[in-house]
C-alpha cells in the first residue's frame, strides 16, 4: 500500500468492490480476519488489523496452511498433466509415458503431483490428530472438525482415483484392491460402484474415464468448497486457542504473517522437490487385466481397512465388516456431536483415551494389512 499504488487502487475501487475480492481471497488462506465488505479496502483492512489476533502461519496451526499450499500445488501440477494425459485404457499408459520421457520436466511434474498427494493425506491426518488432542471440535468449532474430516475423506478419494490413471500394472491392481474394500461397505460402496461403473470383481472400461472425471472435477471442487467453509467458520469463531499465546495488532503483524507464508511456501516446495528427485515413484509397465502382479496392495492409507476386512473375514460376513467400517468413518466425521461435554481446553480424558486406542488399532491394522497384502 505505497503512495504510487494509490492511483490504480482507487481507480479500481470506484469500479469494483475490492474489499469483497480481498475478502474472498481471505477465505482461501491469505488472512483470516473478518472483513467488512461494505467499507473501502483500506478502511476494512485497518479495522481487521486493529483487532488483536494470532498468526496461523506459526505453531501447530501451520498444518492447515500446508494443506492449502499442497492443494494449490496439486491443482497446478494436475492442470499441467491434463495437457497431455489421455483417459482411455488404450492410450493412458502411452500418454503418461510421453509425459515421463518426452515432455520437458514431465517426470518432475508427475513426481511432484504424486508426492504432493501423499503429503496432503499425511498432513491432513496429523492435523486431525492435533484437533483431537487439543479439543478443536468442541463448540463453537464443530465445523472446523467436520470440514477437516470431510477434506481428508475427499483427499483419500482424490488420491485413489488419481492412482489408477497412469494405467500401470501397479496402478491397476492397487485399484482393484481398493475397489474390493470400497465394495465391501454397504451404501457407500454401492454409490461408489454406481459412479465409477465398475463392480467388486473388476475394473470396467468405463472406470478409467470416470475416475478421471471425478479426479479432475468433483473432488477438487469439494476440496476447495471445504477449504472455503473452513475459513468461513474460522472467521466467525476465531482461531483455535493455544495456551500462552500472545495476540498481535497492526500492520507489522500482517507483514510478518505474509513473510511466514512465504517461508512456509519455500519449505513445502523444498520438501516436495527433494522427495520427487530422491524417492521417485516407479513408472511400471502397462496394466494387463490377465496377469496379476504379486505383492500389490491397496494404497497405504487403506491398509488398515484392508487388514480389518482380511482379519474379520473368518468370523464376520463381509457386509457386517463393511458396516463396522461405515460406522467408524461416520463416527469420525460427526465426532463433535458424540462428544458434547462442556467446552474446555483439550479433549476430555475419555475421548482422548478412545482416540489413542483408535490410532493404535489403526496402526496395528495397517501393519497387518501390509503383511497380508
Amino acid at each position, binding site marked *: 500500500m505505497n503512495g504510487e499504488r494509490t492511483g490504480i487502487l482507487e481507480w479500481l475501487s470506484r469500479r469494483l468492490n475490492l474489499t469483497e475480492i480481498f475478502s474472498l481471497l481471505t477465505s482461501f488462506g491469505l488472512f483470516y480476519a473478518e472483513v467488512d465488505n461494505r467499507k473501502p479496502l483500506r478502511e476494512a483492512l485497518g479495522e481487521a488489523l486493529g483487532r488483536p489476533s494470532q498468526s496461523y502461519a506459526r505453531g501447530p496451526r501451520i498444518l492447515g496452511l500446508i494443506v492449502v499450499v499442497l492443494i494449490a500445488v496439486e491443482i497446478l501440477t494436475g492442470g499441467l498433466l491434463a495437457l497431455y494425459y489421455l483417459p482411455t485404457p488404450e492410450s493412458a499408459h502411452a500418454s503418461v509415458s510421453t509425459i515421463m520421457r*518426452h*515432455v520437458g520436466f514431465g517426470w518432475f511434474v508427475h513426481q511432484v503431483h504424486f508426492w504432493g498427494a501423499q503429503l496432503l493425506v499425511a498432513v491432513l491426518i496429523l492435523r486431525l490428530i492435533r484437533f483431537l488432542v487439543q479439543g478443536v471440535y468442541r463448540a463453537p468449532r464443530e465445523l472446523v472438525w467436520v470440514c477437516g474430516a470431510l477434506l481428508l475423506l475427499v483427499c483419500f478419494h482424490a488420491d485413489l482415483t488419481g492412482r489408477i490413471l497412469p494405467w500401470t500394472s501397479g496402478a491397476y491392481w492397487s485399484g482393484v484392491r481398493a475397489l474390493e474394500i470400497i465394495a465391501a461397505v454397504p451404501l457407500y460402496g454401492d454409490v461408489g460402484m454406481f459412479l465409477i461403473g465398475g463392480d467388486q470383481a473388476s475394473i470396467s472400461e468405463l472406470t478409467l474415464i470416470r475416475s478421471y472425471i471425478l479426479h479432475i472435477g468433483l473432488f477438487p471442487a469439494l476440496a476447495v468448497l471445504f477449504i472455503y467453509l473452513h475459513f468461513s467458520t474460522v472467521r466467525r469463531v476465531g482461531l483455535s486457542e493455544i495456551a500462552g499465546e500472545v495476540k498481535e495488532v497492526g500492520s507489522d503483524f500482517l507483514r510478518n504473517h505474509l513473510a511466514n507464508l512465504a517461508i512456509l511456501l519455500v519449505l513445502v516446495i523444498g520438501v516436495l522437490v527433494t522427495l520427487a528427485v530422491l524417492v521417485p515413484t516407479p513408472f511400471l509397465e502397462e496394466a494387463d487385466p490377465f496377469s496379476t502382479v504379486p505383492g500389490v496392495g491397496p494404497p497405504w492409507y487403506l491398509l488398515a481397512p484392508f487388514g480389518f476386512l482380511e482379519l474379520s473375514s473368518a468370523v464376520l460376513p463381509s457386509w457386517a465388516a463393511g458396516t463396522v467400517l461405515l460406522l467408524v468413518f461416520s463416527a469420525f466425521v460427526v465426532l463433535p456431536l458424540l462428544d458434547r461435554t462442556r467446552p474446555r481446553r483439550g479433549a476430555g480424558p475419555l475421548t482422548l483415551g478412545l482416540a489413542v486406542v483408535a490410532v493404535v488399532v489403526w496402526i496395528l491394522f495397517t501393519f497387518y494389512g501390509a503383511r497380508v497384502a
Partner: protein
Amino acid sequence: MNEASDSDAPEPAALPRRRFLNWLVRGFLALWGVGFAWMIGAFVRAPRAARSLAERVIKVGTLESLPVGQARLVHHGKEPLWVVRVGEDTLVGLSAVCTHMRCIVTWDGDQQILNCPCHDGSFDLNGNVLHGLPPRPLKRFKVETQLGQIYVHL
C-alpha cells in the same frame, strides 16, 4: 518479506548487512520464480512426439499380412503409394505417382522395382530413376511398425 520489525534500534554497522540479506532473499525468490516459470513453459511446450502425432498417419495393415518381398498399393490421401516389405523389419514407402506424367507405377515383384506403364520408366526401391523419362526420383514416405501394425506418415 523484510524483517524490519523485530529490531527496534539497529546499529549502523548492521544496516548494510540487513540490506544485503534483503537483496539476497529477494534475489533468491526472483530466481525461483523465473526457474518455475521456465519449467512450466518447458512443460507446456509440446515435445516432438506430439508434433508427429499431429501429422497424418495411416494404418496400412498388419505386418503379417505383407510377406517379405511383396508390396501393397495404399489408396489414401491425395496420391496412392506403395508400401514394400524389403526385409524382415525393413519397409519402404514410395509414391505410386510417376514424376513424369503422373501415371500410376506398378510393382514388379521379380525384379523388385517399380515400372511406369506409360513411357517405360522404372524406379528402384530408393525411388531413384533406373531408366526412362522420369525427371525426378519418387517421393519417399516414412514407414514404421508398432505392435505389429504398419503405419505410414503422410
